[in-house]
Every structure is written in structure tokens, then in C-alpha cells.
């Protein structure tokens, strides 16, 4: 095992891992709009899509509603959220992934 592989934990990437669904595009777009200036990485594995960025990633209900063109409640996010990197904060208005410690 190369050292770089074993050192893979030395990262600060946070964000949702989405199950394949018709929500992916709207969520990725919202991640870009709601986190201005941040590079959003999208890694499509087919059955799941890893969306992440450095340190903190927020996705807002209002942005999703506007992207989807329909009402959206934040608890619906759970249907798509297969896993996530980082800590999570869940509210009625947004979902946030973050680390308290940076390494």
C-alpha cells in the first residue's frame, strides 16, 4: 500500500453522497449556487454521486425550490442522502456539512 493511499484521510472534504435520482442535478446546482467561490467536486459513481468541497458545504431549501420549480421541504433530502462526509446540521431551511477541525 503506497503511503499516499494510506494518507487518504488527510483531507477536509465534506458533502453529501447522493443516491442516483432525478434530484442530482438540482442538488449539484444548488451546491454551486449556495457556496460561492468554492470549488464543488462531483464524482459520479453511477449508483451514487459524491459531491464535496473543502471544509463546509451548505445547501438551501430556497435554492432547491427554485432549481426544481416546486415546493421542497428539507426533510426530503433524506430520500437522496445515501451517506455524507463531515458532520451534518439539519434544519428546515438548509442542510450543512462541515468539519470543526481542519487538518
Amino acid at each position: 500500500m503506497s503511503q499516499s493511499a494510506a494518507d487518504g484521510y488527510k483531507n477536509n472534504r465534506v458533502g453529501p453522497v447522493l443516491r442516483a435520482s432525478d434530484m442530482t442535478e438540482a442538488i449539484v446546482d444548488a451546491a454551486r449556487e449556495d457556496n460561492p467561490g468554492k470549488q464543488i467536486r462531483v464524482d459520479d459513481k453511477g449508483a451514487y454521486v459524491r459531491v464535496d468541497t473543502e471544509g463546509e458545504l451548505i445547501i438551501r431549501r430556497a435554492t432547491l425550490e427554485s432549481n426544481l420549480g416546486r415546493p421542497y421541504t428539507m426533510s426530503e433530502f433524506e430520500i437522496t442522502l445515501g451517506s455524507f462526509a463531515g458532520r451534518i446540521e439539519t434544519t428546515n431551511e438548509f442542510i450543512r456539512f462541515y468539519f470543526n477541525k481542519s487538518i
Partner: protein
Amino acid sequence: MTVMDRSEWYDIARDTNWSPSFVREQEMFPPQMTGGFGLAREKWVGYDEPYKTSYPEYVRIQREKDAAAYSVKAALERNKLFETADAGWLSILKQHYGAIALGEYAAMSAEARMARFGLASGMRNMATFGMMDENRHTQLQLYFPHEHCNKDRQFDWAHKAYHTNEWAAIAARHTFDDLFLSRDATSIAVMLTFAFETGFTNMQFLGLAADAAEVGDYTFSSLISSIQTDESRHAQIGGPALQILVESGKKEEAEKLVYIGIARAWRLFSVLTGPAMDYYTPLSHRKQSFKEFMLEWIVGQFERSLIELGLDLPWYWEKMIAEFEYQHHAYHLGVWFWRPTVWWNPAAGMSPDDRDWLEEKYPGWNDTFGKCWDVIIDNVLAGRHEKTLPETLPIVCNMSQLPICAIPGNGWNVKDYPKEFEGRTYHFNSEIDRWIFETDPARYRGHMTIVDRLLAGHIQPPDLSGALKYMNLSPGECGDDAHKFAWAEAYRANPYAKKAA
């Protein structure tokens, strides 16, 4: 009607702490059931579950999840997956359902223990949902394979496996009994929800979902990734518990539980998910290697979360990462060789192209595991099938209940890690397995591996036929090579030559 924002009522609605007057506190929350290393209950008041939901939200969202999973199944039922899928893929389904479905039922019981005996209101609340989640997983994973039972009785093992003394079922039960069925509520939060669910379940339920989608089994892909959305929520029960333990000076005790949890999960997933990803899934549909999935989910994501919670990496972390290179190859070789003793048909995964892929993903594979397969191939081609089958049982680890094995070939390094305790010699696969035993020998001492049972005369006659009977494996259920050795024909005219680098 205006609905109040959840945050405005959530804390008060889920606060079910009160001071008992009819019974003593200790009777309501007996330490044997609650755990918590003797911390006063006040310490748990600050427990704040990060992934929140409420009952109305839970019901609405779960209904939607179920509707989606069942409608994908209904829509694809005419797809004739059973008739058209590769035999290796069907083996993955049989192996998965048998090893997982009733394990979920055990997890439901563990969640129920947290729901009743958790020391924090938030833990009890989230575990109530977790308990219903695990019930859902059991029901789904018994129902989905059931349609195949009338075509192939190995699918009946989705329900049957845990009720038998089949060796893999013993290994799964031993692990789950240890991690959550026989633990207190606090330890369950740490070992089941944190160590097992935020880490390893992603491998089987999202990693394997990626392979399933590649194979075209959208029913399975949708089912298991749907299950993982529940896990993703209730797995968050453990994080805040760990935080309280660490802040209250119980870091070392908490870490020990986490380390046992990770070590035991790793063994189980390396025998379950490892062969499925690197051998049973047809080559053209493999999304990544098992090692690559481990690096993504366990190193990149889970290991990082240990650091975030203020935990140190386990003392054995580097040893475990080194095992990513070989442990599951050894288990695969063993499962294939002892194939009559499992309820699925192991796919050898051994075409020349498969071997090129294995060499690419695991440099050196041909000089180690490949040499064992060379002998098997020679025997298959010469019609000496009996030489590809076992006459005895392997030496089994007293912790993992899996064969003691390592790297074959010129550098053959298999080694027993024995331990004497109260006049009995226990055998372990590695320092890690032995360390788990040493953390609490009295807990583990009484268990007998399948080999211990053979030596004690529980298995009669003491040969393969007696072992199969003991494991409740009947003809038609015993495993055989998934492709009936068709893969070996590629070597008849052309012995395998390693692809030039």
C-alpha cells in the same frame, strides 16, 4: 395553517427526562443496560443529535422511500433478472440476503435497547426511528429475495442462514452478538451506529450498489442504497455520544469500543464484500476494486471522522490497511475451496482477463494467490475435481470465526497467533483478533468455533458429510462453482501468461 419550524419545538418535544418518584433512578436505568462508564445522567443533557427528524416527517419520508423501492422492483419484475443475470451476480444476492437480512433484525433489537435505555433523550428519540428503520430493512431484505425461492432454494437462506450452524452464519452471529446484541445502550451507540454504520455499511450498501447498477440490477441497487439513507441518519446517534465520553475523560474506554467495532466489521466485510466486488461481479461491471472502495469509504471518509471526533487512530490501523491487499483474496480462495459449506455458488472470477485485472489492482497477485489458482486450474482441466474440494475443515480464528489465512506463494506467511487462557489454547488470525480477546477474555472464552465443535464430537460423522449435516446444508443448497468450471476452459490450450507490464 402555519406550521411552526421544527427547531422551535423539537428540543422540548423530545425531552423525556424526568425525575422518577415511584422507582429509583437505578431501577429505571440499570447500569447494566445503559452503560455510559458511570457518567452522571446530567452529563448526557447536552447530547445533541445532529441529524434530526420528527415523527410526522419520518412517516412521510419513509413512505416515499418504500414506495420507490417497491415500485422499482415491480417495474423490473418482468426483466427476468434471475434468468439473465450472470451466475456470479446471483451468488452476490444470495450471499447478501442470507448474511444481512436477519442481522438487520438483530440491529432492530439493539436500536430498541438504545430507545429504552439510552441516557440522553435525543438518543432515545433517534433510536426509536432507528429501530423502525432496521425493521424495514429486515422486511425488505426478506421480501425481495422471496420471489426467487421457488426457482432456487439457496435463496431460502435469506431467512434460514441465521437459524443454522453454517460457518458464515456463526461468524456473522458472533460478530453481531459482540457488537450490539450483548452490549449496553451506550456501547451500542459507539460500536453499532458509529464504528459499524458510519463506516462499513457504506461498503456493502453504496459501494456494491455501484456494481449492481453496472450489472443492470437496478432493483438491488435501488433497494440497498435506499436502506443506506436510513443508516445515514440513525448512524449519527454515535457521534454525539462519543463526544460526551471524550469530553468527560472517558476517551480511552470509548476508543477501545470503537477499535473493537472497526476490527470486527473489517473482518466481516472482507469476507462478504471483498469476494463480491473483486471476484463475483463480472469483470466488465466492476466499478472499482474492493481496495479502492475501502480507500474511498473507510480511509478517505470514515477515518477522517475519527479525527474530527477527537479520537486517535486504532493502534492497528496500518496493519489493517496492509490487509486491504490480501485478506479478502485469502478468504475468497477459502470460500471457493470450501464451497459445499456455503449457501451460495462462489464464482471463481478466474478468467485470464480477471487475473490481469487482479494483477493491475493488486500488484503481485499472480505470484501469490495466482499460484494456488494455477494448481486448482490444473486439477480442474485434468478432471480431478475431488482435489479442488475439501476433506477437512480449516483452522478457524477464535475471534472472527473465519479461517486463519494470509499470503500464499513463495512468501507464504500464514501464522497462528495463539493465546493460553484458563488452560485452553485459543487461535487467532492476527494480533488484532487476539487483542480483541485480550480486552475481555471472560466475555469470549466460552465460545466454540466450528472446528472446536468438530473436535468436541458435536459433528458426526466427523467429516465433510457430517459437517454439512451439522450446518443444515442439504443437496441443492450446498454451494458449487457458479459457472460450473466453464472459466477453466480458457486455459486448456493456453496456460496463463502474465500480461506484459
